[in-house]
């Protein structure tokens, strides 16, 4: 069975003045139609860079490795170079929802004009059709007075409504894959609940694949089918959401869960993960988590164990160094 999206052995490196930074190393992921893949990790773990690679949106100083493949709908995105090809994915087959809805709308152009513009680029339709599609989409995401909002600017909408409009815009071209990069982080909890429910409904309705990036494990538990946990550019553990959150094997996943305040268990102490995330300029060799791992084994500590995911249960993959450490703790 072929997946909607398959990322194989992806490395992403940035050339900077201070040297070459490895932002993402050897990542393999897949997303099926109608499935939500959650990517969790702290800031700087390479979540957004991975997502942006799928649309080739990373800046000019980026280099990808030769043998990496990003197969979307049976085509390797990484080999796309012409504007024509890239247009097919950017906003066509793939749409993206960003964290900060204020920053992702042009402030001086009406919301409606922005929605119509991208529809005209990707679909073979005229302006009136584009307008009616946009207004219907705005209604679909629960915006009251869609006709009025269509003619307003982003600053006239509240935060939650802006995020809804962003979702409407991303969906109006009927993408096969939706990349949601922290779409609820800037929202209040009550609005976050509304937006999460909306995204879940829409995924069901349109049967698209979704990559949902967040640092909030609670949100992941609510929306994702599969989860990949990233740390410093590597996936350290991945598998079905239930398995990862209830039966985590890697010490980093365990650490994240223990650091999270749980409202149902107020007596549990909050235990932070010791130390700081290392700079990507001096990324540890071997297991990337070894500098902060509380249960390190001697070989892992010296960086002698290379990173490699091993299947511990059907569908549940854990980094091999982490399996040993996880057993210690």
């Amino acid at each position, binding site marked *: 069975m072929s997946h909607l999206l398959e990322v194989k052995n992806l490395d992403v490196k940035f050339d900077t003045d201070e040297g070459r930074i490895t932002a993402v190393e050897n990542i393999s992921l897949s997303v099926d139609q109608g499935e939500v893949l959650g990517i969790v990790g702290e800031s700087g773990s390479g979540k957004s860079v991975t997502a942006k690679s799928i649309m080739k949106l990373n800046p000019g100083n980026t280099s990808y490795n030769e043998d990496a493949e990003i197969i979307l709908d049976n085509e390797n995105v990484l080999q796309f170079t012409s504007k024509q090809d890239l247009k097919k994915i950017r906003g066509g087959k793939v749409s993206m929802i960003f964290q900060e809805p204020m920053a992702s709308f042009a402030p001086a152009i009406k919301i409606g004009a922005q929605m119509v513009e991208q529809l005209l680029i990707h679909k073979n339709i005229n302006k009136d059709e584009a307008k009616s599609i946009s207004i219907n989409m705005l209604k679909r995401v629960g915006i009251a007075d869609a006709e009025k909002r269509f003619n307003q600017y982003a600053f006239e909408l509240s935060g939650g409504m802006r995020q809804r409009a962003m979702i409407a815009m991303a969906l109006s071209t009927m993408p096969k894959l939706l990349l949601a990069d922290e779409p609820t982080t800037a929202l209040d909890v009550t609005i976050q609940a509304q937006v999460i429910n909306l995204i879940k409904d829409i995924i069901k309705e349109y049967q698209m694949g979704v990559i949902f990036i967040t640092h909030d494990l609670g949100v992941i538990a609510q929306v994702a089918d599969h989860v990949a946990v990233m740390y410093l550019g590597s996936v350290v553990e991945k598998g079905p959401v239930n398995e990862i959150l209830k039966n985590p094997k890697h010490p980093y996943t365990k650490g994240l869960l223990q650091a*999270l305040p749980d409202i149902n268990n107020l007596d549990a102490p909050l235990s932070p993960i010791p130390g700081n995330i290392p700079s990507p300029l001096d990324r540890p060799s071997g297991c990337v988590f070894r500098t902060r791992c509380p249960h390190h084994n001697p070989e892992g500590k010296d960086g002698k164990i290379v990173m490699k995911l091993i299947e511990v249960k059907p569908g549940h993959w854990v980094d091999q160094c982490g399996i040993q450490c996880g057993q210690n703790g």
Partner: protein
Amino acid sequence: MGDNLISVNNVSVNFDYQENFISKKQKIHAVNNINIKIKKGSFFGLVGESGSGKTTLGRAILGANKISSGNVIFHDDERDYDLTNMNKQDLKEYRKKAQLIFQDPYAALSPRMTVRDIIAEPLEVMRITNSRQETDERVRDIAAKCRLNIEHLRRFPHAFSGGQRQRISIARALVSNPKFIVADESVAALDVSIQADILNLLKQLQTELNLTYLFISHDLSVVAHVCDVVAVMYLGHIVEMGPSRELFKNPKHSYTKALLSSIPSIDPEKRSEAIELKGEIPSALNPPPGCVFRTRCPNPGIDCKGGEITMGLTEVEPGHWVDQCCVL
């Protein structure tokens, strides 16, 4: 009054608002008729969505916002300070005793000053120390308490991660030996693992230095974990207030219930149906008359729908106060 540090009595804060120079002057009712008492040594939590007036109330208590009516009293050991009626000398004294920790550790620290200068600045501005040596001693002392190394003091803020920067902000707030700290969303910008570290540090410093906190946050699980008393704000009003365990176990107000149900559960099998609140928080320019929550309330009574019930807290259990509209 013996065990209270702060008494907030009927405090309202209004801002003037004029859309453009010909339109009518309006008033924004940011904070309305708030009464709270913050006990010495307590960790007082203030939760609510954006626009609910949490920050305005916090700033009013620090004397950083003008209080439109009501008063705030700070009960010091020897004397009381009335914030609405204070001369310059008193205000200077009060500033030493009440300090603020900001939300964004990236914006709160000057990039051109070394960490030592950042932490020492309050001492110099308030003329607390008399010699450079004394200043250095105080700085080193508080830095150690906030788990910063001596070598860190010579560096500039850009060399530090978010968690370390937040520790620098905390050190700066504590260097003047304050008694009262307002922590405004102080962990909101941090990753979970670092958030846990900072919360533990705040708790530890509280016992070490006898601090009282007003902890402002939108994250209910964080507040439930660290605070002993919690007040829930909505559109400038406190709608429910009580000991945190009692309030989170046994919420009475429909807004508190909705907020609690909206927290995404970490258990994938409990894809709970959150009590969905329709619409968004109304504008503080013209808040609905009567109960401010009634426009979004999932189960309004006939009386409150019409806005006939005025806002006011009633005590349902000792220390647990709920807005009367939801109790009737």
